[in-house]
Structure formats: structure tokens, C-alpha cells
């Protein structure tokens, strides 16, 4: 009886894990399969297979512009949040100065707020200053979301290094700048690179702020996909989504290489 119950739970656990894995994979797999079709409308399963729409998507002006603009914005946001984040992280992880905890709280706060609210707040300000919303409000909004992540990852790396190594470097005659460049930076590099790649991906994937701030010709790929998807499904959106999945997969491999995806997300050390 008890072995029967045990094996029942054992099987139930496995079935659950498999079913939940399939559920998590489902939308991604469905998009990838549905995108490889020559059909004129989105059907699942597709009636024919081919790469016709992957050619069409690059001929479509709004998607082509969207890809380029998304990459530009994400690149700028990643570099800027990397610089801003690493400076703040070094100071905040080491320094003991008045207001330190308050500064950390203020810097982390934007990720707790809905993108809808951040977006309209930024739109009203750039409207007041008579600036175009894209790319100014867009980049500002993305920096708000990405700086906290870079800060958190880099701070964790800074806390993890032994300050005696830097002291040794200084006592052997290296300047503060040399110590920072040749001792500190290499030690925090994995956390910083993971933070920058993550910032790139957050900006590249973000859709709400991107949609609210979009202007003709200055619309990111996710915002362009949203615009088309409000009219229903179409093979063009499917392939554009497929491209975003491929892109995310490439960056995921980069994170895995530099830092370990599961270590980054779930503190997995095994």
C-alpha cells in the first residue's frame, strides 16, 4: 500500500513537471513553428512550411526600422546604465556616508512602479519641455528600469571581493586609477557584464514605455509588434516575434557564458 502511494506521488510529480514545462514552452514553440510557413494567414498547425515571411519581414519598412531603432536604443541604454550603475555600485557597496540607504532606496524604487505610470509621467515632462517623446522619454524610461538591475548585480560583485587585494595593489605603488583599472574592474567584470547584457535585453524587450513614447519612424520592434497585433494575428507579426525569440536566445547564451543564467536568476550554485 505505502509503496503504491509513494510511486503514485512519484509519477504525479513527474507528470506535473513535464506538463508545466510544456506550458512554459508552449507560446515560444508555437510562434517558432507558426513563423515557418508560406500560408497567407496564421493557422496552427500551419498548412505549408517555408521561410517566405522571414524575407517579407525585412521588406516591411516599419519592422525593419523597428529592428534598427530597438538595437540603437538598447545599445545606448545598456552602455549608459553600465557606466551609471558601476559608478554608483562601487560607491554604495563600499562607502559609509550619510544618506547611503536612502540613495539605494530611491535608485531601486522605479522598478517597483508600473511602466504605464512611469511612461505617462515622462510623457508629460517631455511634453512640458517641448521635447519629442521618442527617443528622449523612451531612453529615460528604460534607464529607470535598467539602472537598478545593473546596480544590484554589480553591488553584489563588489561586496564579494576582498578589499585587501586592492590595498595590496595600492601599497605596491599602483595609483587609485591603476588599481581600479587593473584590479577592481576585472574582479567585478562578470557581474557588470551580466548587468549590461541584462540591461540591453530589458530595453530591447520592453513594450509599454516603448509604445507610449513611440513616434512615426521612431518605434521599437516590440511597439511595432503591438501596433500590428491590435489588428489581430498576421504572419508578419509571427516572424517578427520569431526574430525576437532568436535574439533573446543569443543573448541568453551570452549571459550563460559570462555569468550563468541560473546563477543570475535563481542563485543556483550547483
Amino acid at each position, binding site marked *: 500500500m505505502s509503496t503504491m502511494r509513494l510511486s503514485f506521488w512519484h509519477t504525479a510529480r513527474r507528470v506535473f513537471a513535464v506538463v508545466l514545462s510544456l506550458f512554459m514552452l508552449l507560446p515560444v514553440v*508555437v510562434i517558432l513553428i507558426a513563423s515557418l510557413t508560406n500560408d497567407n494567414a496564421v493557422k496552427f498547425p500551419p498548412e505549408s512550411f517555408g521561410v517566405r515571411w522571414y524575407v517579407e519581414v525585412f521588406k516591411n519598412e516599419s519592422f525593419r526600422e523597428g529592428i534598427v531603432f530597438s538595437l540603437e536604443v538598447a545599445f545606448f541604454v545598456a552602455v549608459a546604465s553600465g557606466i551609471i550603475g558601476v559608478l554608483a555600485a562601487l*560607491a554604495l557597496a563600499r562607502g559609509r556616508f550619510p544618506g547611503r540607504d536612502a540613495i539605494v532606496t*530611491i535608485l531601486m524604487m522605479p522598478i517597483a512602479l508600473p*511602466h504605464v505610470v512611469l511612461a505617462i509621467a515622462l510623457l*508629460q515632462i517631455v511634453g512640458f519641455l517641448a521635447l519629442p517623446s521618442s527617443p528622449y522619454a523612451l531612453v529615460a524610461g528604460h534607464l*529607470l528600469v535598467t539602472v537598478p538591475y545593473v*546596480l544590484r548585480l554589480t553591488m553584489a560583485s563588489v561586496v564579494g571581493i576582498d578589499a585587501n587585494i586592492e590595498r595590496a595593489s595600492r601599497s605596491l605603488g599602483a595609483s587609485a586609477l591603476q588599481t581600479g583599472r587593473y584590479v577592481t574592474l576585472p574582479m567585478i567584470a562578470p557581474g557588470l557584464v551580466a548587468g549590461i547584457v541584462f540591461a540591453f535585453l530589458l530595453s530591447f524587450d520592453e513594450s509599454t514605455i516603448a509604445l*507610449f513614447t513611440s513616434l512615426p519612424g521612431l518605434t521599437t520592434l516590440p511597439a511595432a509588434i503591438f501596433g500590428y497585433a491590435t489588428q489581430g494575428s498576421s504572419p508578419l507579426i509571427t516572424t517578427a516575434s520569431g526574430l525576437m525569440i532568436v535574439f533573446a536566445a543569443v543573448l541568453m547564451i551570452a549571459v550563460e557564458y559570462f555569468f550563468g543564467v*541560473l546563477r543570475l536568476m535563481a542563485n543556483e550554485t550547483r
Partner: protein
Amino acid sequence: MSSIGASDSMSVPRPRNFLRDNLPLVMTVPALLVAAFFFTIPMAALFVNSFSVVNGLDVKWTLSNYTDIIGDSYYWEIMGRTLWIAVMATVVTMVLGFCAALYLYFSESKWRRVFLFLLVSPLFISVIVRTYGWIIILGPSGLLNWVIPGDARISLLKTDTGIIIALVHIYLPYMVLSLNASLIKMDRRLIHAATSLGARSWRIFKDVILPASLPGAIAGAIIVFSMSMTAFSTPVLIGGAVRKTMAYLVYQQNLLLGNWQFGSALAFVLLGVTVAIVTVLSRIGKRAEATR
């Protein structure tokens, strides 16, 4: 930085230099500028704006934006639907997330890491893409109709159920990560002790695992609930114009109708209700931990 200070004190005293002496503070300046100009000031301006009514060049300070929202049953109905969707998404995510986190905690299978990877990797893919995947699945010529036999064309698009399914899929990784973070802190010997003292599985779950995972469960519920309350693209794309949620109204008032003052007030109503419920949740969590 301490390392710089230590070696500086050994050398000949140098003249005062504000930048050098306050280096840590100076290094946070770029981040603080971002927080001030892109966050604090815009949010304050949004809040102030929500108390104004603009008529041409005439600006009037009033509470009428808020009283108009509270006095109109239309907004109550949409807030009700938003709450219902967010609560359902949170509950379903919690149940699935708990089972997944327990599996991750106890499994010694070589597939464990694969399972964890499949659970968290969707976070790398844009919400808009995952939502679009659900549109293909739930739509009239999608996977659902292929799997379910019969000629009747069913579609979960433009239904609350469809929105909830997509939100559960999108926010489940956060719940799993949050519960997982709590569970890995639990001492495995507690379970061995309880087992050797003869406790049944149910009692171990109730008296050992549940209390240990409570902080993660509350944190996960807070994340999933607040994100579901304020989610924009998923409810709009799946629910369409017939199943509007609060986030869509904020968008509509601000961007489609250009009614910025009223739209600001709507945003703060949504934010206020969300924060109120999140505060209650975290109080419950703190109290449960204190009485343990």
C-alpha cells in the same frame, strides 16, 4: 573608498579637494540625476497635475478628477474586472509556483536544472512576444481548436480567462524564483527531524515547509499581483476593447483622448488601490511570521 583613504593617509597631506574627499558621493551623482530628473520630478508633476483641470489657458485646482472617477460606476466596473483578473492570476500562479518550487526543492533528478531553466528562461523573451504566442494558441484558428475535437470554433480571446492564462504564464517565473529563494534557506535537517519524529507528510508540509516558504510566497504574491493589476499590453491584446482594464483606461485618457489631468488621476487611483492591497499583503506576511 577605504583602500584609497588608507594609503592617502601615509603620504604628505595634500590640499583639500572636494571631488576626491567626497568620491563615493560624487560617483552616485549620475544615478541620482537619473532618479531625480526621470523619476522623482516627473512623478511629482504627475501627482500635482492630477488635481488640476485645464480649460484652454485656464488652470483650475480641484479634486474633481478624483470625485468624477469615484462617482462613476463605469470606473468601478473596470476596477472590479482589473482586481478580479489580478487576484485570479495571483492565486493560480501561487498554486502552480508552489508545486514547482517544491519539486525543485526535493527533486534529485538530473532533469531538475532543465526544469528550472524552462521555468525562468521565458523572462528573457519580450512580454509582447509571449502574449502574441497566446493569441495564436487561444484564437479561433489556433492550437486550442486543433487539440479540441469538434467543429465548434472556440476562442478564449476577448475573455477574462484568456487574459488570466497569459498573465499566469508571464508572471509564473517571478513566483517560482521568489518561493525558491525562501525554500533554499530552509534547513533540510528540519524535515529529517520531523520525519524521524514520526510526522506525516501533511504535517511536515503544514508545520515546516509552509512557514519557511511564507516570506517567499508573500513576496511572490506582491510581485505578481501588482504586475497583473498594472499590466498593459497583455490585457489589451488578448482582452481587446471589450474586456478593458484600468491600465488601458490610463492609456486611453492620456494618449488617445489627450486628457492628461484626468488620465493622471486615473493612474494614481490604480496605483493607490494596488499599493493599498500590497500593504495589506505584506502586513499579513509580517504578522504571520511574528506569531510563528
